[in-house]
C-alpha cells in the first residue's frame, strides 16, 4: 500500500459514518450558536445603516438576496466535491453529503429568486426581467430540481448516488458555459460589483453588513447541511435495521450474521 492510499485511508477513518455522527453531534450546537450570533449582528447592521439615496429602504433586500445567491453557487460546489468523493473514493458519506445538499441549495436559490423578484419590482417596475444574472440563477434552480427529481426516482441509494454524482459533475462543467452564454444573450445587468480586482465598488457602509450576512448565511448552510446529513445517516441506519429485521424473521431463530460488524461499532 503506497503513501497516497494510506493518506486516503486516514481520511476515510475520520469520515466513517459513526464517527461522523459523534463528531457532528458535538459540533453542531456551536455552529448553530455562531449562526445565531452572526445573524443577530448582521440583521442589526442591516437596519442600522441608512438607505440608499436612490433605492431607499429597498436596498436592504440586498442583504438577503446577495448572500442567498452566493450560497446557491457555493452549495453546488459542495455537491460537486461530494460527487468527486462518490466517484473517486466511493465514500458513503460523500453520497449522503451530495444528496442532502441538493434541497438546501434549491431553497437558497429559491430565496435568491424571490428576493431578486421583490427587489426588481421597485427597481425595474416589474416582477421579473430576463436579465443575465436572474436567468442564470433560474437555470441553476431548474438543475437543482432535476437533481432532486433524479434522487427521488432511483430507489437504490448506492446507484442513485453514482448517477446523481455524474449528473452533478456534468452540470458543474456546464454552469460556466451556461453563465457565459446567458451573459452573451443579455447583458443588461450591471457588472458584478462586490468582488473586483481594483477593490469593491460598493459603498463600505453597505459592504460591512453584507459581509456579516454572507458569513451568517454560510454558517447557516453548513449547520443545516450537517443536520441534514445526520438525519440521512439515521434514516439509512433505520432502513438497514428494518431490512435486518425482515431477513431474520424470514430465516427463523438462527438469525443472520452481520458481515464484518467491525470492532468499535455499537
Amino acid at each position, binding site marked *: 500500500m503506497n503513501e497516497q492510499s494510506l493518506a486516503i485511508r486516514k481520511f476515510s477513518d475520520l469520515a466513517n*459514518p459513526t464517527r461522523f455522527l459523534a463528531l457532528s453531534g458535538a459540533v453542531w450546537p456551536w455552529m448553530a450558536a455562531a449562526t445565531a450570533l452572526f445573524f443577530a449582528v448582521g440583521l442589526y447592521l442591516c437596519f442600522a445603516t441608512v438607505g440608499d439615496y436612490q433605492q431607499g429602504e429597498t436596498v436592504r433586500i440586498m442583504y438577503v438576496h446577495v448572500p442567498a445567491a452566493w450560497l446557491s453557487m457555493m452549495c453546488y460546489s459542495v455537491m460537486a466535491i461530494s460527487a468527486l468523493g462518490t466517484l473517486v473514493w466511493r465514500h*458513503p458519506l460523500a453520497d449522503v453529503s451530495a444528496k442532502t445538499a441538493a434541497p438546501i441549495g434549491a431553497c437558497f436559490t429559491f430565496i435568491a429568486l424571490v428576493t431578486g423578484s421583490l427587489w426588481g419590482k421597485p427597481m425595474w417596475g416589474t416582477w421579473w426581467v430576463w436579465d443575465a444574472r436572474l436567468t442564470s440563477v433560474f437555470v441553476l434552480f431548474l438543475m437543482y430540481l432535476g437533481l432532486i427529481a433524479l434522487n427521488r426516482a432511483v430507489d437504490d441509494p448506492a446507484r442513485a448516488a453514482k448517477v446523481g454524482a455524474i449528473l452533478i459533475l456534468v452540470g458543474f462543467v456546464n454552469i460556466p458555459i451556461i453563465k457565459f452564454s446567458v451573459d452573451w444573450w443579455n447583458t443588461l445587468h450591471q457588472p458584478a460589483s462586490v468582488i473586483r480586482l481594483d477593490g469593491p465598488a460598493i459603498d463600505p457602509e453597505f459592504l460591512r453588513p453584507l459581509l456579516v450576512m454572507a458569513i451568517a448565511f454560510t454558517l447557516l448552510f453548513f449547520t443545516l447541511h450537517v443536520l441534514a446529513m445526520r438525519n440521512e445517516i439515521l434514516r439509512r441506519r433505520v432502513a*438497514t435495521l428494518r*431490512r*435486518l429485521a425482515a431477513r431474520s424473521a424470514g*430465516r427463523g431463530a438462527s438469525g443472520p*450474521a452481520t458481515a*464484518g*460488524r467491525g470492532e468499535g461499532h455499537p
Partner: protein
Amino acid sequence: MRLVAEGLSAKRGEDLIFRDVSFDIGAGEALVVKGPNGSGKSTLLRVVADLLPRESGKIRLAGGETQGFDSVAGACHYLGHRNAMKRELTVEENLRFWKAFFGDSRGGTGVAIDEAADAVGLGGILHLPFGYLSAGQQRRMAMAKLLVAWRPVWILDEPTAALDASAEAMFAGLVKAHLSRGGLALAATHQPLGLGAVSELQMGGFAAIFAEAWV
C-alpha cells in the same frame, strides 16, 4: 488458460449476497453453480463478467494465452436471461451484427452464421425477423450468438430455462464442443446440463446484510 476467482464477495443494494467465493476453472473444464432461487447465482456470474462491482476479491485469467486480453470480461461470452437480440431485425442481421461487433478473441475463430444456425438446429429460418420466432427458438438463436465469435470463457445464466429435452441435449453438445476446443464454461442452473462429470459450486444464499457502514 485458467479463470481464477479468489475471495469474491458482492452486494446488491445493501444485501451482501455472497462472500468468500473462490474457484479455479482450467481449460476444457466447466463449473456449474447451483443453489436455490435468490442464492446469488446470477449475481456471481454478473460479477465475473464485470457487470456488477465486486465488494472484495479478485478475478483473473491465469496460465498461458492470456496475452491478448485487457480484461476478464473481454474474454467472456455472457448468455443472460435476456437474449440480447433485436425483434425488429432478422436473425441473420442480428447474428451478423454480433459477429462483427464481438470480433474473435485470440486463440480461436467463430463459425459462419449459417453454420451456427445449423448447429442450434434452426438452419432454415435465418431470414425471419427475430420477433417471429417462438420463445424456444429465440433462446436457441441466442446460443448461436456464442458460436459466431470465439471467446475462451462462456458464462451461462440458466441457459436451458425455456428449452425442451432435445434442445437441452443440443446445448450440452455445444458446451462440450466448446470445452474440447480448450474453452471454459461457468454455468448457473437448476437443471442438470448433461455435461457429465463437472465440478459444482453450491451457493448458500444470502450471506448477510451489509450493515456496518451505517449501523
